């Protein structure tokens, strides 16, 4: 049965491609109860993906195709575990805030590794560009969702920035905490917020004056 299809390992590796970003939503939704935590999460992801890229790029030449998916799975999870330990040691507040969603960030480096696997040998610059785009998107989403939830739920912005980001950025208080809309800080609030965000994005997409593009 030597059909010219991809080997079975590749099917399991490529097929859930559309699922992987979905898992990325998990930490995004669960851990962005405030703007500071959102930015912290985006920073963690950024560091993880960059390290992953460096490691996978340098080891690429030494790992044969047949074991690459195994090796990179191993590498990605180790890097995430190392990041988790480091955060536990050096930024305890962020560690507690991200909690069990920290291990889930392994999805981001896996995505990077996956695109790298499919790609032919690409230049480091292209990959860097890709990582930057991906992280910028995540940062933007984290900022939007995080600040919306904190504003509505707690009536403030950057209320926990001193503990989590270590900055002395002044926290902005709009209204007292006990007047906050608790739902926004809870998990359903994240889904509602994200849904509204996507709706707004779609609305803008439809109503924006469009240059000629191939898509309808």
């Amino acid at each position, binding site marked *: 049965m*030597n*059909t*010219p*299809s*991809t*080997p*079975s*390992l590749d099917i399991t590796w490529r097929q859930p491609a559309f699922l992987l970003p979905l898992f990325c939503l998990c930490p995004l939704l*669960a851990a962005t109860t405030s703007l500071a935590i959102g930015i912290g999460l985006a920073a963690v992801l950024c560091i993880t993906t960059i390290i992953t890229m460096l490691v996978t790029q340098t*080891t690429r030449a*030494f*790992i*044969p*195709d*047949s*074991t690459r998916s*195994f*090796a990179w799975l*191993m*590498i990605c*999870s*180790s890097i995430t*575990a*190392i990041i988790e*330990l*480091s955060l*536990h*040691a*050096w930024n*305890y507040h962020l560690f*507690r805030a991200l909690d069990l969603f920290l291990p889930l960030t392994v999805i981001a480096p896996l995505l990077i590794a996956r695109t790298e696997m499919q790609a032919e040998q690409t230049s480091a610059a292209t990959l860097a560009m890709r990582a930057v785009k991906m992280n910028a998107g995540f940062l933007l989403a984290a900022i939007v969702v995080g600040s919306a939830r904190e504003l509505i739920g707690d009536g403030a912005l950057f209320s926990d920035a001193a503990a989590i980001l270590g900055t002395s950025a002044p926290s902005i208080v709009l209204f007292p*905490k*006990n007047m906050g809309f*608790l739902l926004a*800080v*809870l*998990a*359903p609030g994240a889904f509602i917020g994200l849904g509204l965000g996507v709706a707004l994005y779609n609305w803008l997409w439809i109503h924006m004056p469009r240059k000629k593009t191939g898509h309808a």
Partner: protein
Amino acid sequence: MAKPDTSFSRPSSSAVVASVAVVTLACLALYCTWRFTASRIEHNEHAWLAAQINMLVPAASHDNDLLDDRITLDAPEYLGDNNSATVYRLRRNGLPAGAVIHCLAPDGYGGPIELLVAVTYDGEVSGVNILAHHETPGIGNAFEFPGSHWLDSFRGRSLHNPDTAGWNVRKDGGMFEQFTSATITPRAIIKGVQHVLDFYQHYRERIFTTASMQP
């Protein structure tokens, strides 16, 4: 055309070497990070626990170093198996003034709930805090969020106030509120606190006479 050597049939020796190398390096890197961070992590956890304990007991209520004056006791008859309690002892002028007991309430919906219960010397609750739990997200808001006062309802309670029947949620004929239609979680916490008080009453002598653990 597919290359036959990418199938599972027989890994090449270079593949085996590469896999072993990757696993070894990954383990090594993890081990080094763990060794390097272990002491800081322990320090962080210790500081966090200290902050939680200090939130429960006012500084004026004791004059000893609470965190170092601690013992660990097993009391399966009150706390269940595999649930040793760490007791931090409050002393004033050398006399016992109360204790902070750190143990598990075993019957939570999503597993054990980690409790911190502060009691006065006479066995009256002076504060309860939840350190960790695995309940359904949202259920914990009744005690997690600032401004939620459910845990305050334990303050001033003791084994005889209310009596045994009263140590329960309203739904079961007790005197504690359940929150937002959840009964399993509050029930577990209430029972956990009650068992801690039971344990304290029966072990009080031992709690204050046992020499503290070596740090």
